[in-house]
């Protein structure tokens, strides 16, 4: 049996008919067409699916759509300004070469925004620790950590020699 969920996604109220077992990420991707949020595992470990639910980073592959009834959802599509100006965290990922293939990037950026908000002034060790649930197969994390640090704690970014 399907039920109706109504939630706010990137500032707009959206409704959809879902099965109880529909995951929040399935609602976003398959029903609302927001394919920026990725799915990289089925064990809640990779973090590609991280979005914000009521201003907190959560793994949208491990939440039911029905559990998001009435919630305020922010996905990677809602981060930039309406005129396309990148969010400072997106700009920092560009600047610091925080991505290669880009598969992990939406989750990394959303987690980065969450880290910078919760832990302003965080040091490099803390940022690495906080990324425990976000896996990247390409970059070796260096650029990702620098990007997040540059927003959370600009003074802590070491001079980096780009090739």
């Amino acid at each position: 049996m399907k039920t109706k969920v109504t939630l706010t996604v990137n500032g707009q109220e959206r409704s959809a008919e879902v099965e109880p077992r529909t995951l929040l990420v399935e609602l976003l991707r398959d029903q609302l067409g927001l394919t920026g949020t990725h799915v990289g595992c089925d064990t809640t470990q990779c973090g590609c699916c991280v979005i914000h639910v009521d201003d907190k980073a959560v793994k949208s592959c491990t939440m039911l759509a029905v559990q998001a009834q009435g919630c305020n959802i922010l996905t990677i599509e809602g981060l930039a300004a309406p005129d396309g100006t990148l969010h400072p965290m997106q700009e920092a990922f560009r600047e610091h070469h925080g991505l290669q293939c880009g598969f992990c990037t939406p989750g990394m950026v959303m987690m980065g925004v969450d880290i910078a908000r919760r832990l302003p002034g965080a040091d490099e060790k803390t940022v690495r620790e906080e990324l425990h649930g976000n896996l990247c197969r390409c970059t070796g994390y260096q650029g990702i950590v620098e990007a997040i640090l540059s927003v959370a704690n600009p003074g802590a970014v070491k001079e980096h020699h780009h090739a």
Partner: protein
Amino acid sequence: MHNFDYHAPKTLDSALALLRDKEDGKIIAGGMTLLPTLKQRLAAPSDLVDLATLSELKGVRRDGDEIVIGAMTTHADVAANADVQSLIPGLAHLASVIGDPAVRHRGTIGGSVANADPAADYPAAVVALNATIVTNKREIAGDDFFVSLFETALERDEIITSVRFPIPERAGYEKFRHPASGYAVVGVMVAKFGDKVRVGVTGAAGSAFRATDFEAALEKSFTPDVLLGIAVSPDDLLSDIHCTNEYRAHLVNVMARRAIAAA
């Protein structure tokens, strides 16, 4: 995932009624263990009863000599709570090293304790701090709660409402974290209440237990070095793909010494 019916009851009584009436109803709290299990089709409940709407199960308060944590309080909220940080900093630290930030934003203390994963962190604190598990029908002492691997004293239609932690003089928690999963290969909480000491060990065996030999030595001298010559028997400890029981026995001693240093 097999399909199920979903319920978000407004009261604890209606949640209990649903659990009693449905053929194979199951509680969902943070879903951080249950949903991955359902995704792998390792379970197929007929109904999920969500406790998220029961605000009386959320939050932390001090009650005399105890800190009372509502079952639906997330790991992130326990870690960030000012009373927990000042009165039982070892417990705030324990909550802050569970999984990752996104898991801590949804996972709850009630779900963790009810699930009784042998490698979960909270069981070490339940045992070491002699916590009381409060349910809709009774209070269960920490020492009696964990029965064996993924098995607790809870009955099928019993809901944890809160966990009460006596405030110790000092307590520390250290875990040897599995580098991939984040769970405890071994985690030890050491707690001092006046001249009594309790040591809770998780990760090492089928369920959390007290290291009584350590307790006796620490009651004489609450210092890391007093444990140097005391070996833990590997006999009843877990041996698996991650490490042997001998290695876990060694880790129990090392983590206990670190926990005392941190307390």
